[in-house]
């Protein structure tokens, strides 16, 4: 390495297989110190596996890891921490009822008495906060903090352990645009101090905005490493999927018909008696997509669950094509909703939409297993179910095209295709869709979006809930923004932008005045706008 400093991280020929699946194949990569390096790829491309190898969760089958030019063996996460690697996971690993300080010290306590290390940590924390613009109250309980703050605690945790290399796995998935901007400022600050940042994401915009170099992964292989300044989102997308993709959804202007869904003053309490919906009213017309934007945890999930018949409401009315729905009684269940023509693609397909240990064909009838077409007398007509499953798998290009595979064995995108095929092919009056493309690869995103638009063009009503603003903006004919159990306002996609929606998502309605990041964060923290 005659030219310049040794790379902060160098991977040489890393391979890792899980059974027959080759998750990583001969991957070599060099990340220079003091840079922000992006790793982008579809779901299942092997990004997380690669980082898990680097952090000591998995051992590579072959290849070697060099940290700061020295060959390093990383058998577990303790070794990774010793090597100066810190990791911020997508799902935070914090103890909810501990304070910030206690969480930071957790696992790195010194001596018998906790107070010694807490005192030391407090001093160091103050220093770190000032240095990197990472302000957070050390005595606040984690459960009282918003997601953005919690993420900062995770970063501080890594820095407290003297990490020189910081790996962030999909860090913006749960953040508002304003929070994401702040995170990026923090990351730039870290870079200026000489730290190395590895950012794993599937969002092209983030890669373009913040990284210096970017590596693209596809099907377990590293397809390219390029300077960010010398590439474009289109080129990266093409590298990710191996072909050109449409990032915008092509759709005709909407032709809204009569009101299909009319929601008035809907109220819901959760088990603790906290109001999750505080009087929500809106309607959806035939032939239009109403998009509900918002940071996760502001009542959108509850809204979908009530409409889908998964939980009762405590107040308000819902009408479907002029007829009231039972919101509390014995006919408020999902089965009755389906009979009324409401199909539902749930937010969490693995927990709700599919039985992961059922075969694909069993899942194709899930929720509709009462359908006479799937039954013959008292017995289920499994042959009919399998024939239908095979047809749907073919039409929706589910891969592998094998109805005997368990749902668990399909990738996220193909799992979602099974759910979408099942719900959309019922030709529902109203389609409820939650996070249709969460954890879904680009190729499948495009396909699923097309299906939703096709249903809308066929004159059906669609209620779309998504935390992805891009998705809301490109699919919706109208956008309603939810914050803290209320609808903050409705906008048209053509006359609004991400900034305005982002502020509404943080509960700020007067979007014309200049707003400080701190205000946004305070608002979100107050609302308890945390991802569940």
């Amino acid at each position, binding site marked *: 390495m005659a030219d310049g400093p040794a790379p902060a991280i160098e991977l040489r020929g890393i391979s890792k297989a899980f059974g027959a699946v080759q998750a990583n194949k001969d991957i070599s990569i060099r990340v220079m110190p003091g840079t922000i390096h992006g790793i982008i790829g579809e779901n299942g491309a092997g990004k997380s596996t690669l980082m898990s190898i680097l952090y000591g969760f998995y051992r590579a089958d072959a290849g070697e890891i060099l940290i700061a030019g020295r060959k390093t063996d990383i058998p577990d996460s303790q070794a990774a921490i010793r090597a100066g690697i810190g990791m911020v996971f997508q799902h935070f690993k914090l103890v909810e009822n501990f304070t910030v300080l206690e969480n930071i010290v957790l696992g790195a306590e010194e001596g018998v008495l906790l107070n010694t290390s807490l005192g030391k940590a407090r001093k160091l924390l103050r220093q770190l906060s000032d240095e990197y613009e990472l302000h957070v109250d050390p005595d606040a309980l984690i459960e009282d903090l918003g997601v953005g703050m919690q993420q900062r605690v995770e970063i501080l945790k890594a820095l407290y352990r003297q990490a020189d290399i910081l790996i962030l796995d999909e860090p913006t998935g749960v953040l508002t645009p304003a929070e994401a901007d702040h995170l990026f400022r923090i990351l730039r600050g870290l870079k200026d101090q000489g730290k190395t940042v590895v950012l794993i994401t599937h969002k092209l915009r983030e890669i373009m905005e913040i990284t210096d170099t970017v590596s693209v992964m596809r099907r377990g292989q590293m397809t390219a490493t390029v300077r960010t300044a010398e590439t474009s989102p289109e080129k990266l997308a093409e590298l990710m999927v191996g072909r050109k993709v449409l990032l915008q959804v092509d759709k005709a202007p909407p032709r809204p018909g009569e009101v299909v869904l009319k929601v008035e003053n809907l109220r819901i309490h959760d088990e603790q008696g906290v109001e999750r919906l505080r009087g929500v009213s809106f309607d959806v017309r035939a032939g239009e997509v109403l998009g509900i934007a918002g940071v996760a945890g502001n009542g959108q999930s509850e809204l979908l669950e009530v409409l889908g018949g998964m939980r009762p409401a405590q107040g308000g009315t819902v009408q479907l094509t002029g007829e009231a729905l039972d919101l509390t009684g014995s006919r408020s269940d999902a089965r009755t909703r389906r009979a009324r023509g409401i199909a539902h693609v749930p937010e969490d397909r693995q927990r709700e939409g599919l039985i*992961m240990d059922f075969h694909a064909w069993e899942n194709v009838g*899930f929720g509709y297993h009462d359908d006479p077409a799937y039954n013959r007398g008292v017995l289920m007509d499994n042959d009919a179910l399998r024939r239908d499953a095979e047809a749907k798998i073919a039409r929706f290009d589910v891969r592998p095209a094998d109805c005997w595979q368990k749902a668990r064995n399909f990738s996220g995108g193909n799992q979602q295709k099974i759910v979408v095929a099942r719900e959309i092919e019922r030709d529902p009056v109203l389609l409820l869709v939650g996070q249709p493309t969460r954890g879904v690869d680009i190729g499948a995103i495009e396909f699923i979006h097309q299906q939703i638009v096709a249903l809308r063009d066929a004159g059906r009503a669609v209620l779309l809930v998504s935390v992805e603003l891009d998705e809301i903006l490109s699919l919706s004919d109208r956008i309603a923004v939810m914050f803290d159990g209320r609808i903050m306002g409705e906008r048209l996609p053509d006359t609004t932008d991400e900034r305005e929606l982002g502020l509404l998502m943080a509960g700020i309605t007067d979007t014309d005045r200049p707003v400080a990041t701190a205000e946004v964060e305070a608002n979100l923290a107050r609302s308890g706008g945390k991802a569940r």
Partner: protein
Amino acid sequence: MDKLPRWADVALIPVVNLVLALIVSGIVVTLIGENPFDAMMIMVNGAVGSTYGWGYTLFYATNFVFTGLAVAVAFHARLFNIGGEGQAQLGSLGVALVCLYIPWPHWTLALPGAIVGGALFGAAWAAIPAYLQARRGSHIVITTIMFNFIASALLVYLLITSLKAPGMAPETARFPEATYLPTAQDFFAAIGIPFARTPLNVSFIVALIACWLVWLLMWRMRLGYEIRAFGHSEPAAIYAGISPFRITMVAMLISGALAGLMGINAVMGEQQRLLQDNVLGAGFVGIAVALMGRSHPVGVLLAAILFGALYQGGAELEFETSVPREMVVVIQALVILFTGALDGMVRGPLEKAFLRYRKQPKPGVAAE
């Protein structure tokens, strides 16, 4: 992560578990000064070496099929019903009442009657914990095990008061002769084959039919589909419009009814009167049987026969050698321990071994 091939999951792991249990049992037998191979021979011979052995083995197996199926059905709904013991005792009571107080003209009529009686009483005993779980969230493990004690106390109370027959023993009067079930001996005698006198009776056929019906229910009927869906994921069940309350109740009622059916074998088929305890731990063995049988009726049937053989072989061992009764229980317990509780101990290494084996054909890839 890759999984084991199916054959290894359903056949290899139970066999390895069983072999490990037998090896440890062998060590224990050696420690008390007996030859483990001789002991093994005596057990095998005693269990399946004669029609007498088979008769008892299958008689015990019949009990275990019913209690094993009971646990298996509840398992599919992710309900851990360890109240099979109490439900079987109540089922026995139901069978006894049907046999004692209804003047049956012939066993072919008495048997369906007893089936209904046993199933109803067993189901009723499971209904209370089921309701408490479904509506109040009281944990089913706690309530069902408590109900075992209540059932036992209830039976004792009835047998020393209203149901007590004249005499010293706390037991009911003998059932009328018309309710006696034909035994295997009767069956085989009819076709000219000599079969030893054992309590093996027509209930065994009922157990086989129960296996088939449970299979039909779980894999061919909507209700079974819903039970399995609920067992895998409650949120998904709610999403699909499957009522958790209904499934919890129905699965437990079926489970209790199956456990209750054990009464027709133990009470109607063998004792022909109700004793303080006709169940003799079969409710608990049912848990091991369901675990080893992977909650599948075929697996339950095979596991039940294995445990039947262990019971019968163990009795022979006690009879023929100086191995004490307690040691036989130890051997049975070891099998339960290895097949049930220590399943993961074998599963983990086996999965690794399979992964390694699959990787090997590819040249040039180092193992580590």
